[in-house]
Structures are given as structure tokens and as C-alpha cells.
């Protein structure tokens, strides 16, 4: 493991050094007079105003014009285009311009083929909760994506759920601005004894410990304006209880999410991501659980060179009686890292307040989490935790300590966090 991280550090340092100019390419003597990005059936000159490329990336591409060719920058820009278009490949070519000693830079975006992709969507080890993993097999044909996944997750919720999921997504429903998605999940549940004991002592707080959980969720996402998207849909959740006799309960809800994402780029890169989600389960949908859940999230990231500062705040409130899977949980790999979720609240809460500050220098990270999960009418107990670790891309290795009096037992976390 030590060598893996050393390898990550070495690779990271190489990548960071990768944007230097090349002394080896004779073409660096020429001046760039045009930058073109082309894809299947389209072509755009980045100097023209259009919304095919995000503003920040278009500005960086346009900044090449009038400058001496710097081949080192082109690879980075091609990578950003690849990410923005979810392309199979983005290659760049340098061609003669219209004027002697001037060149044209052309980026060629190759769309992803209708091929099968296997992805690991979650892979986490927590010294208290054990392993959690999820993976998916995806098949894309033009703008249609089919995903089939399996999961065994003991991290996210108070239950360990294991099962399968299937998803169909159309990323271009008549327009680039509309995305349609159908998702189906079917899980079997395992319960921690602390949760079962807490349910016995608080019988009307939430649902019973169900044996299986199925969810069907059609949603549509509309890009209202460039940084603002609205997602709306319906979730049909079926919970199969075993006691006192086998029966089905439903939690059908209207789901609405408003999301704002903005990136500001200069010497200092800043990302702002804000979202509000409403989940309203109403009798109109024939639900057994009537509740409404509000979640507000604000994430901000500022980066300069190897330094990064991340601030993440979440607040949530549930009115009514929500099933266990929809209640707020802290003490996992996202909230109050270092705490054991079964020590905090083994059946979750209907109120959440959480804030996390993280500083990263290259792959090194240090974080401070503070928050509380409680039930309305009960006192909110603020908890804190600190941790240090390594994070390179999606790979993460951290040790987190709950801040409390008496015996402190750190939690070790490792895996791929997306």
C-alpha cells in the first residue's frame, strides 16, 4: 500500500509538471491564428460566441490565438474537452494557417461508441462498517445509456443494502437541455442490532425494519439556464416488512431538485455547487408514509496550484414519518467521518446540520467535520471530527478521529470515493 501511494505521489508530480512548454517541438516557433473544435457533424471556431463549449474552457481555448504555439497546453485542453463531452477520445492536430508561420489548432472530438463500459461506482472500506461496493455495467447507443448495477453498501444508510439496479437515460430528449431517466433498484436489507433495538424503543418514529426495498424512479432534468438545472420526477418505493406478518408498505413521493453549478476560472479556480431537494410523499400518490423532506447543500472549492480548500455545508429537515432509508444519517464516509453512525443515531434523524472544511495540498488532505443528526423536539448534539489522509483523484485513504472525551477510537477509511 505504501508503494501504491508513493506511486500516486510520483504520478501526481509528473502530471502537475506536464503543462510545461516543450523544447523539443520545432513548431513552437509558429503563432496560433485559429482554434477549431470539431465533432461528428459539427465544427466551431472558439472565437465565435456559442454555447457548445463551456465559457471557461472556450476562454482558455481562445487564449491560444495570437500566442506562440505551446504544445504542452494542448493535451490539457484536449483532456478537458474529453471530460466535457464525455468523449471517447479528443485528439489535436496542428495545421498550417492562412498566413505564413501561423498555425491552426484543431481538436477532434470522437464521441463515445455504443460500447459496454464497466465502472466501479463505490468501493469503500470502513474499519467499523466493513466493505461497501457498487459497480455498474453500461451500454451506450448515441444519447441512450443503459446501466445495470450491483451493490452491497453498509456505509450510506443505517441498513446494509445489497441488490441490483437498472437505469435508462436519454441525454438528449429533443434538446441538449432535457435529460430523461428511469431508475429501478431492488435491495435486500441487513440490520444492525443497535438499529433493531432503537426501533423497538421508538416504534412510531419511522418504518419497521423492512426485509426488501424496491424503488422505481422516473425523472427528467431540464437545463433552465447554463448554470441552473431543475430535476423533477416521482419515486415509487415499496418496502416489504416481515413482522408481525409479511406486508408491503409504500413511500411514493414527488422529487424536485434545483441545482446551481458555476465555475470561475482565473489564476485561482473556484467551483460553486448549490442544490435544494424536496421529496414530498403525499396521499395523492397512494403512499403509506406521508412526509416531506427538504435538503439544502452548498459546496465551494477554491484551488490555486497545489492548494485546495473545500467547504461543504448540508442542512435537512423531514416533516412527517419517513421510512428508514429516507432519514438522515451521519457517521459514514460523507458526514461526521470518524464517528460510528450507530453511536450517533442508529435509526437516523429527521434533522441534519453538517459542515465540513477540507484542505488539500497535492494528494495530502486534512479535514474537520462538524454536525448533528437529531429528531425534531429532541436536543441537537453537535459532534466534531478531524482527519488526515491522502486523496488522489477518486482514490482516498484517511484516518478520522471523533472529537470526544474519554477513549477515542479512530476510524480508518480507504477506497474509491466518487
Amino acid at each position, binding site marked *: 500500500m505504501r508503494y501504491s501511494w508513493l506511486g500516486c505521489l510520483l504520478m501526481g508530480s509528473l502530471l502537475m509538471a506536464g503543462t510545461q512548454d516543450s523544447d*523539443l517541438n520545432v513548431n513552437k516557433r509558429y503563432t496560433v491564428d485559429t482554434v477549431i473544435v470539431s465533432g461528428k457533424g459539427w465544427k466551431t471556431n472558439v472565437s465565435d460566441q456559442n454555447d457548445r463549449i463551456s465559457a471557461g474552457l472556450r476562454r482558455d481555448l481562445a487564449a491560444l490565438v495570437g500566442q506562440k504555439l505551446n504544445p504542452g497546453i494542448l493535451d490539457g485542453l484536449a483532456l478537458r474537452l474529453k471530460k466535457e463531452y464525455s468523449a471517447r477520445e479528443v485528439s489535436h492536430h496542428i495545421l498550417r494557417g492562412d498566413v505564413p508561420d501561423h498555425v491552426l489548432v484543431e481538436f477532434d472530438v470522437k464521441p463515445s461508441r455504443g460500447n459496454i463500459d464497466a465502472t466501479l461506482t463505490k468501493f469503500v472500506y470502513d474499519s467499523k462498517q466493513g466493505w461497501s461496493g457498487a459497480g455498474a455495467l453500461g451500454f451506450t447507443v448515441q444519447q441512450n445509456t443503459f446501466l445495470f448495477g450491483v451493490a452491497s453498501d453498509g456505509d450510506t444508510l443505517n441498513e446494509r443494502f445489497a441488490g441490483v439496479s437498472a437505469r435508462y437515460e436519454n441525454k438528449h430528449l429533443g434538446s441538449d437541455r432535457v435529460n430523461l431517466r428511469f431508475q429501478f433498484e431492488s435491495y435486500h436489507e441487513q440490520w444492525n442490532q443497535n438499529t433493531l433495538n432503537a426501533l423497538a424503543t421508538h416504534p412510531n418514529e419511522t418504518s419497521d425494519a423492512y426485509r426488501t426495498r424496491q424503488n422505481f424512479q422516473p425523472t427528467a432534468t431540464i437545463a433552465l439556464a447554463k448554470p441552473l438545472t431543475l430535476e423533477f420526477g416521482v419515486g415509487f418505493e415499496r418496502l416489504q416488512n416481515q413482522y408481525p406478518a409479511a406486508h408491503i408498505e409504500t413511500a411514493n413521493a414527488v422529487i424536485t431538485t434545483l441545482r446551481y453549478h458555476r465555475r470561475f476560472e482565473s489564476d485561482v479556480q473556484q467551483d460553486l455547487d448549490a442544490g435544494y431537494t424536496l421529496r414530498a410523499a403525499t396521499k395523492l400518490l397512494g403512499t403509506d408514509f406521508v412526509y416531506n423532506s427538504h435538503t439544502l447543500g452548498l459546496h465551494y472549492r477554491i484551488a490555486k496550484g497545489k492548494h485546495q480548500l473545500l467547504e461543504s455545508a448540508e442542512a435537512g429537515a423531514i416533516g412527517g414519518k419517513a421510512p428508514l432509508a429516507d432519514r438522515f444519517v451521519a457517521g459514514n464516509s460523507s458526514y461526521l467521518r470518524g464517528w460510528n453512525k450507530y453511536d450517533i443515531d442508529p435509526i437516523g434523524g429527521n434533522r441534519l446540520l453538517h459542515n465540513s472544511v477540507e484542505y488539500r495540498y497535492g494528494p495530502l488532505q486534512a479535514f474537520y467535520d462538524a454536525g448533528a443528526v437529531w429528531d425534531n423536539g429532541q436536543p441537537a448534539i453537535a459532534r466534531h471530527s478531524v482527519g488526515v489522509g491522502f486523496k488522489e483523484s477518486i482514490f482516498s485513504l484517511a484516518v478520522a478521529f471523533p472529537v470526544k472525551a474519554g477513549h477515542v477510537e479512530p476510524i480508518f477509511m480507504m477506497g474509491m470515493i466518487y
Partner: protein
Amino acid sequence: MDVPARELKISRRSWLLAGLVTPLLRAWGADPLKVQYDGDNLHIAAPTLHFLNGKPLERLKDGDVVAYVAQVELWDDARSAVLKQQRGRFVVSYALWEEKFSVTQLGSSPRTVEGLSATGAEIWCLNQMAIPTLNLEPERFYWLRFNLRTGNPRDFAAEDQVGISIHRLIEILSRKNAPEIHWGPFEARVRLTDLPRMVGRGSRNG
């Protein structure tokens, strides 16, 4: 008894076999490696070997750079031991307006030449691969082996070149769409006394 010529029948199968084997034999005999001796060094030439073509040339004409690693080894006649070897690392680029090649030889003191034709660039690279003949016996046979391939990141990772951005080169070589291409190995059995002397060069060894 002599068989009259008109009775000597060659089957169609034999003609077919001969037709297949003859070009193979020609190709077998056409080893591109030519060796010359200037009295101090062995110089290699490969007039029929062109490595600035195909995919590498496409990349060069797209304004990219292509790295090559060349290796010349001198083996004893039994081919049991390498007596001498020379390794060269070259980075080639192509000036789009002048339509000429530029080559940089990496090493402790990198050297760059510009304004070369494709053949000129190939010859220049091979000229840098001379092997000194000090301590070699003129009457003994040796085997000279020449290998050439496009470079990979490992070839340059340990380099600490003065004035050259090796990180950028490693990044270029790491691209998925730039697979390694090999030429050779090409071999020639040589004896110093048999080798043609290069014109205008004298020996410092006598």
C-alpha cells in the same frame, strides 16, 4: 542419359512454390544494415530502412513529436557476450511551414539539428550510433545488431536533461493512441579488415 529439355516438365505446384519462395529469399538477403569503418569507429547505415513514415509520420505532420530509441550492440562471433553497445534517444518534430524535420539527440549535452529531409533525419540519427573499435581485433569476426523502436515513458523517466522538458515528452509518450513500433533487429557479421573504409577518414589507431 540426358533428358531432352522439352520433356523436362515442371509442375504448376512447383512454379507456385518457386513464386512464393523467391521473394522470401530476396527479402531474406536484403538485410538493410550496412557497416562502414573509419579506422576508429564502426558506422551503420540502413538505406532501405525508413522509420519516418506510417503512423509516426502522421503524428509528426499533425504537429506532434515522436521519440525513438536506437541501440547498436557488438557481440562476439559466438554471440555469447555483448562487447560494446551504443544507445541513442532521439526526438523528432516536423516544421509545418518549412516542411523540414528537426531532431534532438538526448543525452548529457543534447544536440539538435533542424532543416533536414526525412532521409536526412534518418541518416543523422544513425550516424550518431557509431561504435568505437578500440580493443577489437581486426582479424576476428563480430556480430553487429541494430534495434530501433519508438520511445515509451520508461525510456525517459530517469532522464534529467539540461534545458529540455522531459515531463512533457513522457506525457506525449503516455498517450494510448501512440503504440510502440519496432524495427529490427538487423544483424551483420563483420570483420574490421573486410569492412569498406569511409572516404576522407583516417585512423587514429593506425
